[in-house]
């Protein structure tokens, strides 16, 4: 079984203690039989008495104290052994789950943007919580209980065989029936558990999106709609989970009746054997009490298989994540460069096609010399963000190549490359951490002065006015801050790593004019050399660039300086006229 081998692999470090724990189960189960044996002796020796030579029953009262002490010690040992077993199993299962969680976390952090486009947060969360718990449960409980039952079953059978082979075989005749019924159940319940798991993941995603979109829900007064939507998911999960759980009770009566009918067989066959003199009364008595012990593992089998099916449903989902491999990875011969990049960027006939066939960029070629500022403009959806994403290798070009410092980005060590790129993305994502922690995200050891310095460069001085200043906690995704404030913190974060290449994707769209002006000035006067890529809508932002690229449907349709582009017909002049039209008209009136 692949899943079990996979678990075994991840049990590393705990294998010995886990196996040791399971071996102790044998000891513990053995000790379970000690108490009845001692009790038996007390009854025989003390209560009933032993016949002496003349046939009188003599009670050995002197044996009572040692026997009672043995009883107490046996119990103490047994409970200690089982306590140890449980703790060893818990430890091992926690160990595996911890290893897996760490690994999966790390693995997910390295996945391409493609992975995050495909997988929904709620579903991923579900795998790392609910599914993970199923693995824990399997190792901590299911395996142990299966073992206990096997030991019990085999032990009892062996004992039976020593007494009467034929009788044992008659008893065992029931086992194949139970086996057939349980495996049929197990086969049918598997898909149901997978379905119920899917429904839980759906529910998780539904709740997650509702929480993430809580402002929109309130803005549109859609609370009732959301309640209904969630209610449906809640109901679906309940129904699916009920269906999976109820299926067991479809088979349970048969399995349970078969298991319990062992006592009937014992009575009937044992009785007949006794009548015909094959068995003694004592043997039959022992048989009938042990028939219950034999039945237990049989009835547990269904339940355990049920849990195992759930384990398979869950572990399949986790294994999928475990073996997810990003396509954007370091090549085996990638070039490391610890010193600062010069910041030269060259696009050589670059194209980008998404998996769904959409061609986002077509034959893009241009060069950015170190220290230059490249402005990128174009319609909504024309590929501006995709273009800059290629520089930091968030995606890989499907045609042509992107060179940084004269080498294809695919050949650089990914981390070294990215450490030289400061990017403020369009959808500002801040972490629920302090302002300080957010700005110093790229370098946690950054001094407080530095953090303040970069915040100042990004015109984020408003932080000083906050009651707790740089220690103010920002809510998840930066809630509680205005759009402009978030953008400025994101800008400070990008500047703080002193990048050789700075990419600003519409970073100042929500800040007011005066602030924007200040930021432009800071960017011109940076204390470190830096190639800048600026995506913007405003001419005021782009006009001083060394090169302005105009994108349309993934192609560069115009390229040049502000003056060059103004002298041409086209997008840039239109925008310029649009923006200065309003302005000059107003100026006229204002004077």
């Amino acid at each position, binding site marked *: 079984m692949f899943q079990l081998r996979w678990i075994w692999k991840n049990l590393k470090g705990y294998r010995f203690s886990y196996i040791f724990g399971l071996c102790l189960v044998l000891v513990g189960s053995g000790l379970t039989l000690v108490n009845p044996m001692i009790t038996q002796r007390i009854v025989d020796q003390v209560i*009933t008495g032993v016949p002496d030579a003349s046939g009188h029953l003599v009670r050995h*009262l002197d044996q*009572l104290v040692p026997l009672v002490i043995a*009883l107490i010690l046996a119990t103490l040992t047994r409970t200690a052994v089982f306590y140890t077993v*449980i*703790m060893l199993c*818990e430890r091992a299962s926690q160990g595996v789950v911890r290893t897996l969680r*760490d690994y999966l*976390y*790390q693995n997910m*952090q*390295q*996945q391409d943007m493609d992975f*995050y486009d495909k997988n*929904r947060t709620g579903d991923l969360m579900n795998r790392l919580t*609910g599914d993970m718990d199923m693995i824990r449960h399997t190792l901590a409980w299911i395996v142990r209980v299966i073992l206990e039952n096997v030991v019990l079953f085999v032990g009892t059978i062996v004992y039976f065989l020593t007494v009467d082979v034929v009788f044992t075989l008659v008893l065992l005749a029931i086992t194949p029936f139970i086996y057939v019924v349980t495996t049929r159940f197990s086969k049918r319940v598997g898909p149901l558990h997978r379905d119920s798991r899917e429904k839980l993941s759906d529910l998780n995603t539904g*709740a997650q999106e*509702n929480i*993430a979109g809580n*402002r929109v829900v309130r*803005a*549109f*007064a859609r*609370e*009732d709609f959301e309640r209904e939507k969630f209610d449906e998911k809640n109901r679906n999960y*309940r129904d699916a989970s*009920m269906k999976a*759980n*109820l299926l067991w*009770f479809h088979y*349970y009566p048969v399995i349970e009746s078969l298991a*319990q009918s062992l*006592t*009937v067989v014992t009575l009937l066959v044992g009785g007949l054997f006794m*009548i015909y003199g094959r068995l003694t009364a004592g043997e039959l*008595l022992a048989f009938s009490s042990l028939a219950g012990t034999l039945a237990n593992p049989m009835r547990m089998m269904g339940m355990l298989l049920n849990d195992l099916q759930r384990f398979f449903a869950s572990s399949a989902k986790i294994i999928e994540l475990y073996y997810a491999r990003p396509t954007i990875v370091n090549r085996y011969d990638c070039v490391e460069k610890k010193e600062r990049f010069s910041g030269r960027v060259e696009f050589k006939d670059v194209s980008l096609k998404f998996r769904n*066939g959409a061609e986002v960029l077509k034959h893009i070629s241009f060069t950015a010399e170190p220290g230059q500022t490249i402005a990128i403009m174009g319609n*909504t*959806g024309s590929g501006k963000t995709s273009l800059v994403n290629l520089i930091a290798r968030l995606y890989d070009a499907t045609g042509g190549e992107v060179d940084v410092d004269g080498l294809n980005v695919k050949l650089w060590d990914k981390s070294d490359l990215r450490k030289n790129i400061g990017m403020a*993305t*369009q959808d500002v994502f801040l972490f629920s951490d302090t302002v300080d922690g957010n700005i110093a*995200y*790229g370098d*946690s050891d950054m001094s407080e002065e530095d953090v303040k310095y970069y915040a100042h460069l990004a015109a984020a001085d408003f932080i000083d006015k906050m009651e707790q200043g740089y220690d103010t*906690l920002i*809510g*998840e995704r930066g809630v*509680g801050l*205005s759009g*402009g404030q978030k953008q400025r913190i994101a800008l400070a974060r990008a500047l703080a790593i002193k990048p050789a290449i700075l990419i600003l994707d519409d970073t100042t769209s929500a800040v*007011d*004019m*005066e602030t*924007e002006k200040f930021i*432009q000035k800071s960017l011109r006067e940076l204390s470190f050399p830096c190639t800048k890529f600026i995506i913007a809508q405003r*001419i005021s932002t782009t006009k001083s660039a060394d090169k302005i690229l105009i994108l349309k449907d993934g192609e560069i349709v115009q390229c040049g300086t502000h003056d060059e582009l103004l002298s041409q017909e086209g997008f840039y002049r239109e925008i310029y006229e649009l*923006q200065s039209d309003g*302005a000059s008209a*107003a100026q006229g009136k*204002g004077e």
Partner: protein
Amino acid sequence: MARNKFDQDETLETPFSFSHLKRAGKYIKRHARRMITALTLSALAAITALLGPKIIQYALDNTIPAKNVPQLILLSAVLLVTIIISVAFTTIRSRLMTRVGQDVVYDIRKDLFDHLQDLSFEYYDDRPHGKILTRIVHYVNNLSDTLSNGIINFVLEIFNILFISIFMLATSPKLSLLVFAGVPVFLLVVILIKPAQRRSWQQVSNKSSNMNAYLHESLDGAKITQLFVREEENKGIFGRLNKNYRDTWMKAQYIGNLLWVSVDNISVWVTAALYLIGVLVLQPSVSFGLIFAMTTYATRFWQPILNIANLYNNFVNSIAYLERIFETMDEPVTVSDAPDAKELPPITGQVTFDHVTFSYDGSKNILEDLSFTVNPGESIALVGPTGAGKTTVVNLISRFYNLNGGAVRLDGHDISKVTLHSLRSQMGIMLQDSVIFSGTILDNIKYGRLDATDEEVRRACETVCANEFIEQMERGYYTEVNERGSRLSQGQKQLVAFARTLLADPKILILDEATSSIDAKTERQLQKGLNELLKGRTSFIIAHRLSTIKNCDRIMYVSNKGITECGTHDELMAKHGDYYHLYTAQLQDL
């Protein structure tokens, strides 16, 4: 409570009380009939099962020695019948309880989610979303078994104890007292363990909540993490949270498992005492047979207590989760319908601020004594420095917060006296962040008006110039987008959100930096649609783009806890005040 971070344990505000159990009881009460049926069936099954040993004993004593084969067959048949009856009862009981367990979980989750919809967005702003999510999904799931089978078994075991106690007392009151003597010892252990046990399970719920919160945020922010090459450091942080969780879990196990260990040992001491005292001290007055019988009863007396000890551990675990769930359900709803709230009739769109004072924290006023009136159909641009309170002003119109003084009126109706639903459904609000839900683009736009036809959706998209890019996508309006909306560019998301707002056909339109990511050219085209959109609606627009601002009927300059300048573009320019400076600053830059 101050804003919470992923690595901060949420302090539990309420001490443990039995009211939690009582409240959980409310959820169970709804299924009282099924619970009682299940209890009855369990009792019947137990009694039927008792017949089995009697039948066997009879056969061993009478039938077999008499070599009566027909009677043996008959007795076997009877035994089989009792088994079938008992199994049938148990099956029905278990089916009932499975349903109850799932229903209870469904009910609690529904109530929790429903309440969360009533909470203002401050609640969501103040804590990591992963923590809220964990409560809705995993905490609730953990309850199903405890609140169904757990309770039934608990009751059954109590009956078992009572039953066997009566039996023992009837057999030998003196020896019974010996058996009962173990109970105080057991209680002492429970009292000693309980505080640590409860704390440890609370810690488990805290640490899992912390870990999930960090995980959730890491998934959402993966792009930034990769860009800033923070994978290693984050791995370290997650590793610590992961370890903390494991450690608290193990601690809870170390403590929780002591309970059954104690019960097992106490039970054996009781048996030992029975033998010793019975045989060595009381022997002449009690027979050996009686002592033997009593040890059997003692075992049967302690077995249910052992079961209860295990159930109890689960209960403590579940209560740690229940406490959190109830705490969320008790989270006060800050903005809610007044008790005598009326429906807001269809409005014309007049907005009046009447001496409005507002502060987020109750101490620092953001707005002070602000008064203004906006006429139906007017468009207002709100300008001013970042953080001055532009967004606050528009949030107050939608009553996202309650005022600290004064009133906001729509067509003369105080908005604090009308129902929230009737108020907000007449407003169209476009926020800074365009949230896209997973589903088709069509679904996302229809969110504005659920009963809109496809044709209406198309028209709305045409007005906001979104039709072009949508139709170019491979499945047009039926293209699936996901929560992160990553298939769409930021500008495209805003256009979709715009169409959604337009479709709602609001009387009052609020655009909060809603078009910042839309390129200038599209915005220009949009302007035409926008003009049409603004017709007959009162609108409040927060924007930085001059063209957008200039087109408005009136411009309000927000600063200094109020509105310092107000008038048309020309009037304000003539005034040479703050607006003039703001405006010329931009011009100089061009």
